[in-house]
């Protein structure tokens, strides 16, 4: 590999690594959002279970 080829490879690798790093950060963020959604889902379920059971009442 010539010196010029090494520099070209390095430049293209930098671009690839930065994009990959960005994807990695985004994947971490998506994982966090998934955890938050699961927490909220659990919270909503608990709320529903705590609600007093409503009985059907004849009106009129």
């Amino acid at each position, binding site marked *: 590999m010539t010196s010029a*080829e090494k*520099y070209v490879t390095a430049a293209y690798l*930098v*671009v690839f690594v*930065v994009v990959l790093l960005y994807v990695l950060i985004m994947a971490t963020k*998506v994982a966090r*959002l998934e955890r938050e959604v699961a927490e*909220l889902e659990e919270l909503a379920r608990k*709320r529903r279970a705590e609600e007093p059971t409503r009985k059907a009442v004849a009106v009129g």
Partner: protein
Amino acid sequence: MVSRANRLPLLALLTLGLFAAAIAMVFYYAPVDQDGFNQKIFYFHVPIAFTAYACFGWGAWRAFVHLWRRTPGADLESYVAIHQGVIFGVLVLVTGSIWARYRWGHWWVWSSNQLVLFLVLFLFYAAYFMLRYSLEPGPRRENLAAVYAIFGVVLIPVSWLAIHLAQDFIHPVVFTEHGPQLGGSQLFTFLVCLAAMLSLAACLYHVELAGKRLDARLKSLRELLA
């Protein structure tokens, strides 16, 4: 008609295709010019610089829309665009330095106005985040960030014209007042690379924006359930 949800995968697919074509063209189609094999860096370095300018420009436009029409979400769009611009700005500086190390024997040359002005532009937008996160979330932060984003866009033509104002042309000039100084196949390769880079920026912009919007919605949902 393509729905909004399906647009992002299509954009990602387009980006992938354009990148595959761009890399193939850079190494197998575009001829090696008098600068040698090292010139291949140009096909990524310059489109990345143009993409950074486009991101900063789009960020300033969304900031302007935020101030003018108070469009909901325009501030977030401006922030994400500037974030993308800074990422592409890092890539411009790094790929440029790699090229300079081979060609000039130095990682950085302070006597080149174009290099220094791009660094100023980059640092200006890097400081945008310091300003934004030093203020409490709310209309004041949004307005100040928008004004700052609009001011920064003035530096783009200055950075672009710097090479023409410089006395010593140590940085190669490809786009002159007489048009691009490239052969047909080189110009075509460059345009494909530019399309690939702009497409990548658009893709990353939409991914980040979707994440931020989802984050905000989850926050408000959490407040509702609390």
